[in-house]
């Protein structure tokens, strides 16, 4: 009897090893254990102040404002209102004086786990004066100043300094790179044309990428953030799938079959481009091996198949098909096998986006009142939730790389603009305010 138990323990150990090898082999798990669980306790963090130390009047305040918003959006920290806790917001200097000791003590007594402060000023640069910033972090658990950062750069990168510091805080407390330095690519109307733009994740610093004068649609990032793939209309009459290098503006035509060439999406390892093309009759899904240039057809169906979205492991694809009448979200293995329908509620479900954590697929769902809103569904179809409400037409959900937010477009305020919302439907934030039409956001991977 005892021997049998020992044997089964040994066997069990072997299968554990096999399971371990499997996980390590794939390099990633299907569903990640993470800080988006509802019971995750946010870390209470207070920003004391970023003091001006000889810079322009706006400098410290700007850094402080950007940093606070980043901390809040991280969803890792609870941004504490220090004055309401009776903690005086003042210069704690290098954190070594008696005044700062008192502030630390007060913070610890009020449950503030992390205190952040800093100062900013000007430094002689080669052409113009550089801005510099110092930030420090006090941890009340260990009762010590755990460290700081010093940054310098031109005045045009002030926001980026705050973003960088915010990401360091997230990295320190979670081991994740943070999202404050991520970008969002999108389409914006430019006269009658639609061109590609890229902005910071908080809507600032928008830059135009293309100037073709016609239509460029639905950009998606390469996993290394160097490229975007998108649909371009060449001479207005044909569609290509193009790639543009952000740093140089250099362009390549990846796919130029006749008919539709739409919804390109690079696999998480960058080795495959999934896309929809109608060159063999109706819109079908294909997979292009970016190393061998071999093209594999994934779907064979008289209905339209489109909008592939990779699972974080690259093993599966979510996509849209109207094989049942209206468009619905389906799943399949990335070689085209094992197709099964995922959405059953409502007669129009489209534009799926698989969360980088694997646990949700966001999509556009048409409600019984014929409103186009955002929904999320678990890949096993067991959990489903409508995230947005109201009359605006919502489209193109795209996950932040930490899986805690979605960017999407909506006509909620009249014209189409880009918005951000938490994965649980809270904290709706509008990101674009200029232009007559902003659409098709794609959130970059983390750097």
């Amino acid at each position, binding site marked *: 009897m005892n021997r049998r138990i020992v044997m089964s323990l040994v066997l069990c150990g072997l299968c554990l090893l096999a399971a371990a090898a499997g996980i390590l082999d794939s390099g990633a798990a299907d569903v990640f254990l993470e800080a988006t669980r509802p019971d995750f306790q946010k870390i209470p963090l207070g920003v004391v102040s970023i003091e001006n130390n000889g810079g322009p009047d706006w400098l410290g305040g700007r850094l402080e404002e950007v940093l606070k918003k980043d901390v809040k959006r991280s969803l890792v920290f609870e941004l504490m209102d220090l004055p309401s806790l009776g903690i005086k917001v003042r210069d704690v200097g290098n954190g070594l004086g008696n005044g700062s000791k008192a502030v630390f003590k007060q913070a610890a007594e009020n449950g503030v786990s992390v205190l952040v402060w800093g100062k900013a000023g000007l430094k002689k640069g080669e052409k113009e004066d550089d801005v510099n910033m110092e930030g420090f972090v006090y941890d009340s658990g260990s009762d010590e100043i755990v460290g700081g950062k010093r*940054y310098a750069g031109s005045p045009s990168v002030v926001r980026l300094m705050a973003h960088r510091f915010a990401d360091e805080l997230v990295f320190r407390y979670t081991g994740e790179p943070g999202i404050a330095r991520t970008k969002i690519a999108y389409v914006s109307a430019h006269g009658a044309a639609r061109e590609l733009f890229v902005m910071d994740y908080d809507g600032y610093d928008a830059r135009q990428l293309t100037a073709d004068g016609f239509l460029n649609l639905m950009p998606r990032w390469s996993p290394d*953030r160097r490229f975007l793939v998108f649909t371009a209309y060449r001479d207005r009459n044909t569609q290509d799938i193009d*790639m543009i290098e952000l740093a140089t503006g250099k362009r390549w035509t990846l796919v130029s079959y006749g008919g539709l060439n739409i919804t390109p999406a690079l696999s998480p390892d960058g080795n495959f481009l999934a896309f929809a093309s109608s060159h063999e009759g109706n819109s079908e899904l294909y997979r292009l091996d970016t190393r061998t240039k071999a093209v594999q057809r994934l779907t064979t169906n008289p209905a339209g198949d489109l909008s592939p979205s990779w699972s974080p492991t690259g093993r599966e694809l979510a996509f849209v098909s109207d094989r049942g009448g209206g468009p619905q979200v389906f799943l399949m293995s990335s070689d085209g096998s094992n197709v099964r329908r995922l959405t059953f509620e409502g007669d129009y479900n489209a534009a799926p986006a698989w969360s980088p954590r694997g646990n949700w697929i966001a999509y556009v769902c048409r409600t019984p009142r014929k409103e186009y809103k955002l929904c999320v569904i678990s890949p096993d179809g067991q959990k489903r939730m409508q995230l947005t409400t109201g009359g605006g037409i919502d489209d193109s959900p795209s996950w932040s790389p930490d899986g805690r937010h979605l960017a999407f477009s909506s006509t909620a305020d009249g014209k189409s603009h880009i918005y951000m919302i938490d994965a649980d439907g809270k904290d709706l934030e509008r990101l674009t305010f200029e232009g007559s039409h902003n659409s098709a956001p794609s959130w970059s991977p983390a750097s």
Partner: protein
Amino acid sequence: MGTTYSGIAMALVASVALLGVSGCSKKSVQSGGDTQSSQHGSTAKSGSTEGSKTGVGNFPDTSMQSGGSGLRGLDKNPSEEHVASGFGASPAGASAGMGGSLLAKADPSDAASRQLDEMRAEQAASASAGLRDVYFGYDSWTISEDQRQALTRDADWMKTNPAAMVKVEGHCDERGTTAYNLVLGEKRAKAVRNFLVELGISANRLSVVSYGKERPSCEEHAESCYQQNRRGHLAVKSGK
């Protein structure tokens, strides 16, 4: 046993996640596809030939992983990091994680003005031909009886102008997703083309293109406007 298993699994997942964060660069050299790559609009031609690989162009390696997060962690005696606006992977040995290259500025080429000129010529030719648009129902690509009459007149014009080449554009209203509306727009354009072929127009005089909901003729959020946008538009091709 179950707890042990999940405990170990969690530890493994955590370590895998940490490996991912530390982000060791996987490849550092580009495939060299750059130099031979076909620039946009130059050599790559629309690959209408079926089953061939002419529709796939050359392009650079996209499997290169970025060189880590660029974060160095907090330091008790922090050295100064230079922050520069940048994109993508940092070049190896860059002084700061974000010291990548700048984002290229969009090149205001002649393309845009050429497009405008051609569009104006197309519109003028289509207007003088008196071709009529075909309108569709919500979610539909079926040509209704009254719309067939409009198309019959369009076909008559094409028969009396046998040299004219016509582009059938499929359009949608703003409801629904960008992507699915491109598919819907193609279904509408093909329905129009097929009907014209039934009426005796040679298929090689007709091309189809879908603009989805991206080129509306009307911008209001109302059914009166949506109706005008759910259309098949016939354009007389100018030039080639």
